[in-house]
C-alpha cells in the first residue's frame, strides 16, 4: 500500500535554561494512505510535538519526515507552508479559526491561497455538510464551540488534503457535541478518502482509528493495528 507519511529515526530536542530537553527520541513509523491513526500518550509524552513535526509545523533535530514522499527536513519554512496548503488539513483542540473572518471566509482561505477559482460554492457545500449553512456569515465569536469545530472541519477538508492532522479535536467540547463532531470527522474522512492522524487522550476516540501508536517519555512504546472498537475492548484497556 502507498505510504503517505514516513517517519525515520525522528528526534527532537529543545535548548532552554542552559540544558537540553529531549522531547522525542528515535521515532520510526509509516502511515499508509487512506488509513486512520491515533497517537496517544500521557501529558508531556511528546505527542503534540510529534504531530507538529509530522505536519511540517516544526523541524526535527534529527531523523526525517517524509510527507507524500516529500522530505520536509530539506524544505524551508515557506516551502513547508506550501506543502501544508497542498496536502495537509488541520483540526485543533481550540478550533483556531481566524476571528476576523466569517465561517464561510474561514473555509475559503485554503482554496483562495491556492489561487483556485469559483471556490464559494465548494465552501458553502462543505458548510452545508457540517450543518452550518445558516451560520456561514457569522464570525467565530458568534458561534458555539461545537459550531466552531464544525467550521474547522469544513475548512480542513476544503483543500482536499491527502492527510488530516487532528490535535485533540474534542478536547474543548462536551460529550454530546464531541460525538457529533467525531461522527462528522469520520464521515467526511471516509467520503474524501483522506489519511487521518489524531493526537488524543481520549481512548474512545483512538479506538475508532484502525491503528494506535503509544508514546511515553518521547519514546514510541507500542504501535498496534486496531480491531473494530467495542465497548468491551475499551473497558479492558
Amino acid at each position, binding site marked *: 500500500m502507498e505510504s503517505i507519511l514516513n517517519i525515520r529515526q525522528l528526534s527532537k530536542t529543545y535548548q532552554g535554561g542552559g540544558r537540553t530537553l529531549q522531547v522525542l527520541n528515535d521515532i520510526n513509523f509509516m502511515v499508509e494512505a487512506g488509513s486512520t491513526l491515533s497517537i496517544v500518550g500521557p501529558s508531556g509524552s511528546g505527542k503534540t510535538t510529534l504531530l507538529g513535526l509530522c505536519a511540517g*509545523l516544526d523541524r526535527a533535530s534529527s531523523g526525517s519526515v517524509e510527507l507524500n514522499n516529500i522530505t520536509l527536513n530539506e524544505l524551508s519554512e515557506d516551502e513547508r507552508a506550501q506543502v501544508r496548503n497542498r496536502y495537509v488539513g488541520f483540526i485543533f483542540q481550540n478550533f483556531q479559526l481566524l476571528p476576523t473572518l466569517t465561517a464561510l471566509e474561514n473555509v475559503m482561505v485554503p482554496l483562495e491561497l491556492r489561487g483556485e477559482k469559483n471556490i464559494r460554492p465548494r465552501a458553502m457545500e462543505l458548510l452545508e455538510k457540517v450543518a452550518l449553512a445558516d451560520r456561514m456569515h457569522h464570525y467565530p465569536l458568534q458561534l458555539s464551540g461545537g459550531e466552531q469545530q464544525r467550521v474547522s472541519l469544513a475548512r480542513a477538508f476544503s483543500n482536499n488534503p491527502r492527510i488530516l492532522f487532528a490535535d485533540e479535536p474534542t478536547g474543548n467540547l462536551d460529550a454530546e457535541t464531541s460525538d457529533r463532531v467525531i461522527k462528522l470527522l469520520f464521515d467526511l474522512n471516509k467520503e474524501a478518502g483522506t489519511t487521518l492522524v489524531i493526537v488524543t487522550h481520549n481512548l474512545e476516540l483512538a479506538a475508532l482509528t484502525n491503528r494506535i501508536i503509544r508514546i511515553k517519555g518521547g519514546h514510541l512504546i507500542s504501535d498496534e493495528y486496531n480491531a473494530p472498537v467495542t465497548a468491551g475492548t475499551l473497558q479492558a484497556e
Partner: protein
Amino acid sequence: MDRERFVYKKKLNLPWLFLMAWRNSRRNRSRLFLFVSSIVLGIAALVATFSLGDNVRKDIDQQAQTLVGADLVIESNKPVSPKIRPLLDSLGDQRSEERTFASMIYFSKSGGTRLVQVRALQGDFPYYGSLETTPATAGKAFRLQQQALVDKTLMLQFNAQVGDSIQIGEVSFAIAGVLNKAPGRTGLSTTVAPPVYIPLKYLEQTGLVQKGSRVAVNFYYKFKPATDIDQLVKTIEPRLEKAGLDYDTVEERKRNTGRSFEDVNEFLTLISFIALLLGCIGVASAIHIYIREKISSIAILRCLGVNSGQAFLIYLIQIVGIGIIGSILGALLGTLIQQVLPAVIKDFLPIEINAGISWPSIFKGIGLGAIIAALFGLLPLLSVRKVSPLFTLRLSLEPVRSWGDPFRWLVYVLILGFIVVFTWWQVHSWAQAIIFTVSILTAFLVLAGIARLLMWAVRRFFPASWSYLWRQGFANLYRPNNQTLILVTTIGLGALFISTLYFIQSMLINRVTLTGSGNQPNMVLFDIQNTQKDSVAALTRQYKLPIIQQVPIVTMRIESINGKTAADVKKDTSSQISERAFEWEFRVTYRDSLTDSEKLTAGKLSGPVKYPGDRVLISMEEQYAKRINVKLGDSLVFNVQGALVHTVVGSMRQVDWQRVQTNFRVVFPPGVLEPAPQFHVLITRVPSPEVSAQFQQAVVRQYPNISIIDLHLILKVLDDVLSQIGFVIRFMAGFSIVTGLIVLIASVLISKYQRMQESVLLRTLGASRRQILTITALEYFFLGALAAATGILLSLVGSWALARYSFKTPFAPDWWPILILFVAIAALTILVGIFNSRSVVNRPPLEVLRKEV
C-alpha cells in the same frame, strides 16, 4: 513519488493579500483609527507649514515689485558725494528721492512725544504698490503741501485725528492721513520707530539735518519694462561701491525676503516634524501590541499555507493603508490650519499672505505620512515573518525575539537616514540635519533608557511589604505587555518640549526685564550736537536725573588695513582680511579709560595724543577684530568723513554687549577726533513713565533735533514681539503636545485590552471597583510622574546649557510653573488611564468577558 514532484512556487497574489488585509482589519478598525490619529496632527502641522511656505513663495514672486516699490533702489547712509550725483540723476525713467532719519515728533494737541522714523520724500514713489492711507487720496496729496502721513499705531497711541498737527524739528505739519501700509515694511519693523512721511522740500526747514546727523538717502528708480536691471546694476556697481553706495533690486529683495522667511519656515517644519516623529513612535508601539495580539491569527494562516512574505505583506498593507488614511486626514486638517497661519505670522512678513490650497504640499504630506508610517511600522512588522505555525499548537511558546534580525537593523538605519535626509531637505545643511537627528535620538534614548532602568529597578527593589494594591500597581510597570517604555518616552518627550519652550521664553524675557530694572539705565538721548552737550546735561540734572554716561560719537569707515584697501583685498583671493570690514560704518568714541562693561585683554589703552604726528593707538573689541582678522600692531587708516586718520591697533578689549549703555568696537585716544563732526549720547535713568514724559517733552521742545529712546517702550515692543514669536512656536509645538496626548490615550487604550482579562479576573475574584481603580491610578501615576519628571529634568539640563553657553545669562527657573506642569502631566495620565478603564469597572465581569475578550 519523489522530491521533483514538489516544486515551490512563490506567488504573491496581491489582490488576495489586499482582501485578507481588509478582512484582517475587521473588528480592529476603531483601534487602527486610534493608531492613525497619532500621525494625523503631525501631518497636519507639516502640510500647514509646507502650504504656508508654498503660498509665501508664490506671494513673494507675485508681490516682489511692491516689496521694493521700484525697479531699483540706491541707498546710502551718509550724504551722497557730488561726484556720483550726475550718475544718480541720469538713471531710470522716473526717480524719487527719500531721506530717512530717526527723530522725535511732538503731537501739538495731546502734547505727546515719540521717537519716529521721518521719511522725507520727493517724487512719485512707490511705483509699484502704494502708500495705503486713510483717506486713500492722502498717499499722494501730502506731497504737495506742508502735510504728513502718520503711522496708524502712532495715531492710535496719541489719539490723533487727520487734520491735527505735529511738530518735526522747527516745522509744524498737518496730518494729511493715516499711514496703513508702505511697500516692504513689516508690522514689527515699524514698532520701535513708526514711520512719518513728509515732503522732502520741507526737510531743510526742520533744521534736523546738520553736519554729522545720521541721515540715510534712498533713490528710487522706475525703468521702462524691457530694461535689464541686473545688467545695468552690474555696469554701475563699481562706481556705486567706490562712492560707498548700496543698491537693492526686485530680485535681490525677493531673495532676501525669501531667505528670512525660509529660516522661519524651516524652524516651523522641524517643530511639525517632531510632532510627526512622536506620532510615529506611538504608531510603532501600537502596531507592536496589535501584532502581538495577532500572533495566533498569523500562526493559523501559516498552518494553512501562507508563507512568511505573504503574512508580512497582509499586515504591511494594513499599516500603509492606515498611514495613507491618517495622512489624508492630516492633510485635510493641515489645509484648514493653513487658513489661520498667515494671520499668526503676518506681522513678520512685508507681504500680503494668501491662504490658497497647495496641492504639492498636500501630496508631499500624504507621501511623507505613508512612508514614515510604513518605516516605523516595519519594526514591529518584521516579527510577523518569524511567527511559527507551532503557535497553533502551543500558545506558551516564547515570543519572537528579533534583535539578531539584520532587517531590523536595516530598518533602524532607514529610519535614521530618513530623518537626516528630511531634515537636510528642510535646512539644507548636513551638519544641522545630523545635529537635529542626534539630538532627537539622544532625547529618545535617554527617555527609553530611564524607562528600562525604572523597570529593572522596580523588579530588583520590589517593595514586597507594601499593600496589595500598591504592589499590583507597581508590578504593572514591568510585567508582560507593560506600557512603561512607550509612555515614558512619549509623555517625557512632550514634557521636555513644553518645558524647554517655557524656559527659553522666560529666559529671554527675564534677560530683557533685568536690564530694565534696578539702577540700570533706561533712557538714551542721542544726536546731541557739540553745542548742546552742556545745556542738555544741565536740563537732565534739572529734572534730577543722573547722567550715567555722556559720550561723543564720530562716524567713520576703514579705508585700509595694513596698506590694503577694499579693492586690493577683493583682488587678492589669498587675503585673510574680511571685505566686510570696509563696508561697515563705525561709530567711534574717544577716551583714555575703560568703562565697567569693558576688560582689557591685550596691549595697553593709549593716553591722549599730544602732538600731531604721534602714533594714534586705537583699541578694538576682540571678537570683531577676530572676525575681520585684525591683530595687535596692525595699522588701520580710517576715513573720518573725508579726512584720513592713520592708526595702529594698540589694545584689545572684551566688551559685555548685554549692558544698556554705549559700547564701541573701536575706541580712539583723546586728542584726535575732537575737531571731527560728531554728536553726543547721554544715558540716564528715569524713575517713572510720568517723569519720562515730562522730560521728553522738555527735551523735544528745546532741542528738536535730539532723539530719545525710552527703554520702557523697547521692553514693551520686545515683549510684544516675544509674545508673538512665542505664540507661533506654542501654536506649532501644540501639535506635538496634542500628539503626545493622543499617543497617551492610544497607549492607555491598547493597554486596556491587555489588562482587560486580568482586571475581569480580579473582579471575578471579588476585587471592588475602588480597588481596580486604585491599581490603575497608581500604575498611571508612576508612569506619568516619572515621564514628566524625566522630561522636565532633561529640559532643565538643556535650558541651563543654553543659558550658560548661548544666552550667557544666569539660569534661575521659576519653580511654580514647573511644578504645575509636572502635576498637570501626571494628573492627565491618571485621568486618561482611569477614563479608559471605566468599562472594566462599571460593567459586570461576564458582560465584559463576552464582549471584549
